[in-house]
């Protein structure tokens, strides 16, 4: 794609970029912790920046990298705002990715719902940087080199963040296992 020269070119380029990258931006925002009800606004924020900065963008660089960087900034900004808002209101932070109600229609859906909740809890325990590396690598299926390029950080930094994120993930799952074990023992004891 070449640099758009006119307003019409710019709009056409923007539409093309939007079509090609909307799903990626959406997934990224979701995995970076934007909750369902805010996803529309966050995606709009991302692509407003894309539209505004399009004339300055160097088309020699990968657009996906640029868009992911914008997603990170939007997620970071919204994360700060959410924390401030909850502090003001005195509420506990809202758990991210409350995707399905706990009362699922069938066992399979309920299990999926529980696992998503576990994933969300584990991701929430990570810093945004760790979360970005972990989700890009483990969920988006990118290689370490691709993650390094997307985030604009050295490869060893990616490896380090991934290691820490995995530790957090595993601790979170271990807590879940321990709670389940405790519940089973308690129920057995009561019997």
């Amino acid at each position, binding site marked *: 794609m070449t640099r758009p020269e*006119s*307003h*019409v070119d710019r*709009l056409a380029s923007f*539409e093309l970029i*939007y*079509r090609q990258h*909307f*799903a990626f931006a*959406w*997934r990224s925002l*979701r*995995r970076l912790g934007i909750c369902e*009800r*805010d*996803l*529309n*606004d966050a*995606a*709009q*924020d991302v*692509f*407003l920046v894309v*539209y*505004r900065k399009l004339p300055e963008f160097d088309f020699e660089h990968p657009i996906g990298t640029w868009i992911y960087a914008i997603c990170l900034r939007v997620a970071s900004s919204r994360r700060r705002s959410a924390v401030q808002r909850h502090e*003001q*209101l*005195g509420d506990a932070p809202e758990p991210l990715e409350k995707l399905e109600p706990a009362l699922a229609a069938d066992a399979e859906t309920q299990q*999926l719902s529980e*696992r*998503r909740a*576990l*994933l969300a809890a*584990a991701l929430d325990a990570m810093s945004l940087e760790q979360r970005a590396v972990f*989700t890009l*690598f*483990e*969920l988006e*299926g990118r*290689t*370490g*080199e691709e993650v*390094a390029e997307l985030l604009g950080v050295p*490869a*060893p930094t*990616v*490896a380090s963040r*991934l290691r820490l994120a*995995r530790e957090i*993930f*595993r601790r979170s*799952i271990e807590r879940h*296992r321990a709670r389940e074990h405790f519940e089973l023992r308690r129920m057995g004891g009561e019997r």
Partner: protein
Amino acid sequence: MSELKHWLDDSSDADELERSILRAGLEADPPPAKRDEVWTSLMATVAVAPLAAATLSAQAASAQAAGAGVSKAAAVWLTVGKGFLVGLAIYGAAEGVTEISSRLSSRHAPAPSALPAAPRTKPPARATDGDAEASSTAFAPSPTPASGDTPSPRPTRPRSSSNAQEREPQNVASALPSVAAFDESARPGSTRLSQLDAETRALRRARDELRAGKLADAFATLEASRRQFAAPELYQEREALMIELLYRSGQVAAAEQRANAFLGRFPESPHVQQVRRFSRP
């Protein structure tokens, strides 16, 4: 780096529970309608925001004054929870008002805008819900109005592209008024009524700006309201104003899409007749 293995690989050291949890997070693509929905909002913003930047500073003082001019009588109505009526008064939909008035005027005292009172028959919808039905033809930016069945409000043609580019703000978000302009409901411990009050004032301001032809100001006011009230009490009224604004600013296709979605979602809304003028049969 290349020795890193994905945990979803069978040969990794992740156990089955860990893999199953990761697999549960793989499905994160947006529903198909979301792309069109966000695009429609984007086009509205991209088309009108430059105007907002151009005129916002000059109009800020008068807009503020207009926003502050809410009558005491309106506050009384808010206090008794007549958000439905307030919404009617805000939008000023003559046909809708007449229709509802004829049905309900015998039961209720007149509101500040000579409107009858009635409870809201349906709970207010969230803003994001209303847009979900946007059609898949949303990728059609800035069409000119059709000449055949032009509704009564005359669309204002967007400025020429060269002017629009010259006037484009460096930062669209910063060109919009701060949500602090309507910040009463943002206070800790504020009630639902205070949100209704704040929404009412914002929408009244937007309506006045729209009717005065200050499209950029109206857009800025509506956008600030949208950002402040994620779960609005007066969603229908805000959407009806936005549809009219889109039409008047030359975004006819976007106005039609949103109007059609509105009519499908709220077939019994008091704003139906007004919104229908912007829809495509």
